[in-house]
């Protein structure tokens, strides 16, 4: 029986190749070789296309929910309740002529948004969505995902600088300042989780939560710090200074148009999805739910998505309620509030470990 997505795909591919083998003699001697690589490609396609579809539905969900928050309806004409509106928007951007500003640095202008998207999509390969459902499982998957996650400001800054536009440059500067500032509380909040679990493997972290309860309960402080830092990391309101429409035209992607703009906009939501995934994986128990309500086919994937959309709905709620902060307020919150709070959270987590988490006892007896 297949334990992971790769094994499941490989099983089907091997079966099909065996079935086709006699009729396709050139393939059969290399059957095992082809089976491995075809399986890799199919797993990659499943993960990437599934995530792309999820991101598009996520954008639809945001448009609908933010509409309700503003006492109006979101997209509603293309498809049922406007579900195909994003496809229509994407198609419109896809048909646009690619262009670049005359004075832009062509290499950076075209390379940086593409790299921004690729790096962000790459994270999705290491995030398990359900038990065994991942692109690739490595022991340090959490560390790897966050390392890839922190690549973004570099490429954003390259894109902003290459555009040769003052608004882009200011947006890029703000991105660099903001993302670097909030990277630290983000990672320190994760340190507490790692201290409790003793592993960087996301599957193991989720398994730990399935066994001993979600970390949202003991590490509520860490959850809050991680949530706020993640809001800033994915550049969402109230921390959307890099693309403050009122001050900078469209921030660091002012000069980017057509399909490239679709990529950057899409990648923003990919990163929001990754942020939601990480919050669910680290603090809300991942795909683990009590067996009474999770004993049906694909329960892990479905519950994981339900939790993801719940977290994203809170993102939207924050967006609907709060205004954009100033740069000094942003940095103040990051350095003066979140950093001490994450330190307190680490101390609390270490104290829990010393007390023998998950089976708490007073060392040396009461």
């Amino acid at each position, binding site marked *: 029986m297949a334990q992971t997505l790769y094994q499941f795909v490989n099983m089907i591919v091997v079966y099909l190749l065996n079935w086709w083998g006699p009729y396709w003699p050139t393939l059969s001697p290399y059957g095992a070789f082809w089976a491995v690589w075809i399986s890799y490609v199919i797993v990659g396609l499943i993960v990437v296309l599934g995530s792309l579809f999820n991101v598009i539905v996520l954008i639809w969900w945001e448009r609908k929910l933010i509409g309700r928050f503003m*006492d109006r309806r979101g997209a509603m004409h293309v498809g049922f309740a406007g579900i195909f509106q994003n496809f229509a928007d994407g198609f419109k951007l896809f048909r646009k002529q690619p262009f670049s500003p005359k004075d832009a640095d062509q290499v950076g202008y075209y390379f940086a948004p593409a790299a921004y998207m690729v790096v962000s999509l790459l994270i999705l390969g290491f995030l398990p969505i359900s038990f065994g459902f991942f692109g690739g499982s490595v022991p340090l998957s959490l560390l790897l995902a966050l390392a890839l996650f922190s690549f973004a400001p570099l490429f954003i800054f390259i894109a902003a600088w290459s555009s040769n536009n003052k608004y882009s440059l200011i947006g890029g500067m703000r991105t660099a300042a903001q993302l670097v500032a909030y990277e630290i509380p983000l990672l320190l909040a994760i340190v507490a989780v790692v201290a409790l679990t003793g592993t960087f493997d996301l599957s193991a972290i989720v398994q730990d939560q399935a066994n001993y309860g979600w970390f949202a309960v003991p590490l509520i402080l860490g959850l809050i710090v991680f949530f706020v830092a993640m809001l800033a990391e994915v550049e969402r309101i109230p921390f959307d200074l890099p693309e403050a429409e009122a001050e900078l035209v469209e921030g660091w992607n002012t000069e980017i148009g057509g399909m490239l703009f679709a990529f950057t906009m899409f990648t923003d939501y990919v990163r929001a999805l990754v942020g939601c995934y990480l919050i669910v994986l680290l603090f809300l128990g991942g795909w683990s739910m009590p067996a009474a309500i999770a004993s049906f086919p694909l329960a892990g994937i479905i519950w994981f998505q339900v939790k993801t959309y719940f977290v994203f709905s809170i993102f939207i709620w924050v967006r609907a309620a709060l205004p954009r902060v100033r740069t000094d307020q942003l940095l103040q919150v990051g350095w003066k509030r979140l950093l001490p709070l994450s330190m307190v959270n680490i101390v609390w987590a270490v104290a829990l470990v010393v007390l023998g988490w998950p089976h708490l006892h007073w060392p040396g007896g009461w």
Partner: protein
Amino acid sequence: MAVSTEKKSKESTGPTGFAGLVLYPMFTAGRQLLRSLWRPSTIIYPSEERLEAPKMRAKVRVASGAPIGVGEIWDNYRGVHALNIRTCISCNLCMFSCPDMCIEMVSTKSPDGKTKKCPQIDYGKCSFCGFCSDACPESCLTMTPDYTITASSRKNMIYSPEQLGEVYKAKLPMNPTRMAVPKNEDNILLDQDLCIGCNACARDCPTKCITMIDIPKPTPKPGEKIAKRIWKEPSVNDAECVRCGTCISVCPKDCLYWGKHK
């Protein structure tokens, strides 16, 4: 440091603190979400029309400060015209009064079987000034609160008299100020020296209130030439006249004019 704190205390007039800046806005937004979860306030206009038929709203109440609500309009709103074909007298006054020249008189079949000329309005040109309905002496051309004029081509923006008649049959609330008949106290007067008795005025009078009466042909003195004309003169029945001025506009000799009887 002291200066900055003093400045802050002066400036701090709005909500402050975590509760005021984060929790209260979140609560407000969540309350709004719960309110509009089932049905937001927006009306899906083309597919949903209005929640109910538009109610007329007296201008007096609006002037007193009461706001216009959803589906309520002022009683002097100028929208699509309604035409009562049966009472139209084909006087052309609407056409003459139109500043945009969007009205054309086209022959129409009246419900009582007669064929007559009635106004056809091009809404692509119409500026909704209401002069036509002001000028209408029979108040058969009025304006309704209906503002839904949409068409896929310019040709479809032209409303024929029959279409305007359909608007009339829809029994929309009529615009009372536009219903008022203009009060013209003047009468049609005749310059007898210029008249040639051509019958044009009597022929084109929409209410047939002009009759041509015989006048005595003067006996010329020897050597004197008398005017070559038909020895008839228009006589206007002022009670039936609607003051449309058609006779004045059709007169070839400009012998009819507005004035008061002496």
